[in-house]
């Protein structure tokens, strides 16, 4: 159903800049993103103001995630053993291709559980999973003739539009009700309306059929609890519960870093995640899934499979970006980010956008994605809001360092920075350069400000004047002053 090109295409600086320009010119997107920014950040701040011991809870959340990552091998083994003890099955996938193959095999095997005589294509009901975006699962399944339906309302909308989600928490953040209405009118013959409740009811009815005829439910996982083998799904709509309860087979897909040690630790994370994501104390549903339906239970899936995906995480764990693995995917750093608020999620060209996405994309997918980290002012709003206090600006700088080490910046920048360093390393050269610059900008400028500079600096003067360099810099004035002082003493 979706038709995006392979991911690494379009990751050049030029392609990224073109997507940014498109986003900046899209008035619908601009309105939607401003609204997202204002409401989400204000809501989140209120939610944390009302949380007792909020800062200590954040410290604890961070400590829990650090503890997990520092002994990830042990917790993974414990988690896997617990899942199997509960009757689930654990599958390990080293990369996206292996994960796709495992899931494809499981879905095809589910054909054996079909009611006799059913000949429609195998149907997968999916609830939100960023991992499935990361491994491009839908493509892989659809290529084998399997029908995959996203059941989260926002994901359902973007899937119908042939787009990836634009935000970790709010996949259709870039759309207004007008776009959704037009889409539903076209796809389902809905009579024109701007009533959100009506559109929601229509989606409910469409998806209801999917839940009750799906062969397999696929979900993401917010946290896996090592102690108990429990999968925690934190949702509001109820689609996550339906996907994991009604179909006879449930496949849960998770990055292997997504663990907490104990149930008590999960409780702490649960105080942080909904407040950060949607300003809720708790979401409508917290599903704690421990294994498939037991013999004594009246309903639930007959099989539960957990697919643990590495896809670059183990490598990241050993490098300077390890801290980014603490992320609990709350989306708060996206909401607060002034750059995300201008360009939205699609401009990044990665399943993970925004501040943390720029780090994670480079960490998981390599230097093809390191340009994203340059699109930041390092303003630090993300670090302040992150519930687990990830130092995102410092991580962005690490990515930039890798970008330079890989020789990726344009020549003008490489030369410019080297020249700058050469000049600045020695006060004499620095003084000479100041004189030269004063002379040059004096010639270019009228009055004290320059209106036009040559490329690449025209990117500055397209929107702003630039001040002329001072004919007498501070250090000269200081000398004169010191001489005057010496005389008067």
């Amino acid at each position, binding site marked *: 159903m979706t038709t995006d090109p392979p991911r690494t295409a379009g990751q050049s600086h030029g392609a990224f800049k073109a997507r*940014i*320009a498109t986003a*900046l010119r899209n008035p619908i997107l601009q309105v939607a993103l401003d609204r997202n920014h204002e409401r989400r950040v204000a809501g989140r701040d209120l939610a944390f103001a009302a949380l007792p011991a909020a800062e200590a809870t954040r410290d604890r959340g961070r400590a829990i995630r650090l503890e997990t990552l520092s002994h990830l091998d042990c917790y993974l083994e414990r988690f896997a053993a617990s899942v199997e003890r509960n009757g689930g099955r654990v599958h390990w996938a080293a990369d996206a291709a292996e994960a796709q193959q495992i899931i494809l095999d499981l879905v095809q095997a589910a054909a054996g559980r079909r009611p006799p005589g059913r000949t429609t294509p195998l149907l997968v009901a999916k609830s939100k999973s960023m991992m499935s975006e990361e491994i491009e699962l839908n493509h892989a399944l659809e290529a084998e003739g399997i029908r995959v339906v996203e059941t989260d309302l926002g994901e359902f909308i973007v899937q119908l539009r042939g787009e990836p989600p634009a935000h970790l928490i709010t996949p259709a953040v870039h759309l207004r009700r007008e776009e959704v209405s037009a889409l539903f009118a076209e796809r389902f013959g809905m009579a024109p309306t701007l009533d959100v409740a009506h559109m929601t009811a229509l989606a409910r009815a469409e998806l209801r059929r999917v839940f009750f005829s799906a062969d397999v439910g696929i979900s993401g996982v917010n946290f896996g609890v090592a102690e108990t083998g429990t999968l925690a799904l934190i949702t509001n709509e109820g689609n996550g519960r339906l996907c994991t309860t009604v179909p006879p087979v449930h496949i849960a897909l998770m990055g292997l870093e997504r663990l907490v040690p104990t149930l008590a630790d999960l409780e702490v994370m649960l105080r942080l995640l909904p407040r950060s994501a949607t300003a809720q104390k708790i979401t409508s549903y917290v599903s704690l899934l421990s294994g498939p339906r037991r013999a004594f239970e009246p309903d639930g899936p007959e099989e539960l499979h957990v697919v643990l995906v590495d896809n670059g995480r183990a490598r990241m764990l050993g490098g300077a970006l390890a801290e980014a693995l603490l992320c609990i995917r709350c989306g708060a750093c996206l909401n607060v980010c*002034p*750059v995300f608020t*201008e*360009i939205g999620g699609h401009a990044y060209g990665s399943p993970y956008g925004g501040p943390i996405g720029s780090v994670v994309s480079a960490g998981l997918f390599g230097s093809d994605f390191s340009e994203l980290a*340059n*699109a*930041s*002012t*390092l*303003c*630090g*709003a993300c670090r*302040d809001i992150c519930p687990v206090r990830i130092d995102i600006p*410092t991580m962005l*700088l690490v*990515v*930039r*360092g*890798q970008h*330079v*080490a890989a020789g990726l*910046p344009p020549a003008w*920048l490489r030369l410019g*920075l*080297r020249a*700058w*360093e050469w*000049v*600045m*390393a*020695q*006060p004499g050269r*620095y003084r000479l350069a*100041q004189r030269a*610059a*004063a002379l040059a900008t004096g010639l270019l400028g009228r009055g004290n*400000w320059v*209106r036009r500079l040559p490329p*690449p600096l025209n*990117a*500055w003067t*397209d*929107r*702003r*004047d*630039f*001040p*002329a*360099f*001072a004919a*007498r*810099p*501070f*250090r000269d*004035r*200081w*000398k004169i002053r010191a001489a005057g002082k010496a005389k008067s003493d």
Partner: protein
Amino acid sequence: MPTASPKRVQLFVTCIIDALFPDVGEAAVRLLEHAGVEVDFPEAQTCCGQPGYNGGFRKEARRLALHFLDVFERSADPIVTPSGSCAAMIVHGYLDLFRDDPPNRARAKALAARTFELSQFLLDELRLAPDQVAGASPFRGRVAYHPSCHLLRGLGVRQAPERLLAAVPGVELRPLPQAAECCGFGGLFAVKYGDLSAAMLDNKLAGVRASDAETLVSADMSCLLHLQGGLRRDGSTVRCLHLAQVLAPAE
């Protein structure tokens, strides 16, 4: 009025102020001297290395950081700089730059402990009363304060500049909408992603207009370079001044 015991500081003026806005450096000196602080200017200073560091040119940035350490280690006096951004570079950035170089990391750590942004130094370190610092300023006018990201979130200096501005008899302080939001400067970012930076600038300038201020004040000339450049292009009469220029006594 009793002031803190006579103090000496090393002024790190920053390359932007040195080369583009020397008036700001002079105002900072007047302000410090008015507060009873003796100012020294180590002449071998150049740039803290931030442009390279922020651009990912860590090797180049490290060389300049080492130069900075050499220059400012010659004296044990505190280092004061009229820039939240450059102060944050020295206080936090150097530790990251030397993360794999323990001896230089130790040097950076020691220097960071005695490096301060100007308003932070006057109020938090010397513990002067705001009117002792700013009471003699002849400035008059409606002022909005833009907290630069690196001062606000990088160094955690949240109140000092506005407390100082409020102590200037002629200042009428106007609230700036969305004050804590980034102005979109970001160094190289403003050139590499010029249109994105400009969109952020537009948001900030809308706030400035709404504040009805005549003067926009900040503790970082890098933000003000960008903001003043945009205001001039818009034909606005709002002028940008560094905090020190508003607080300092007359020449």
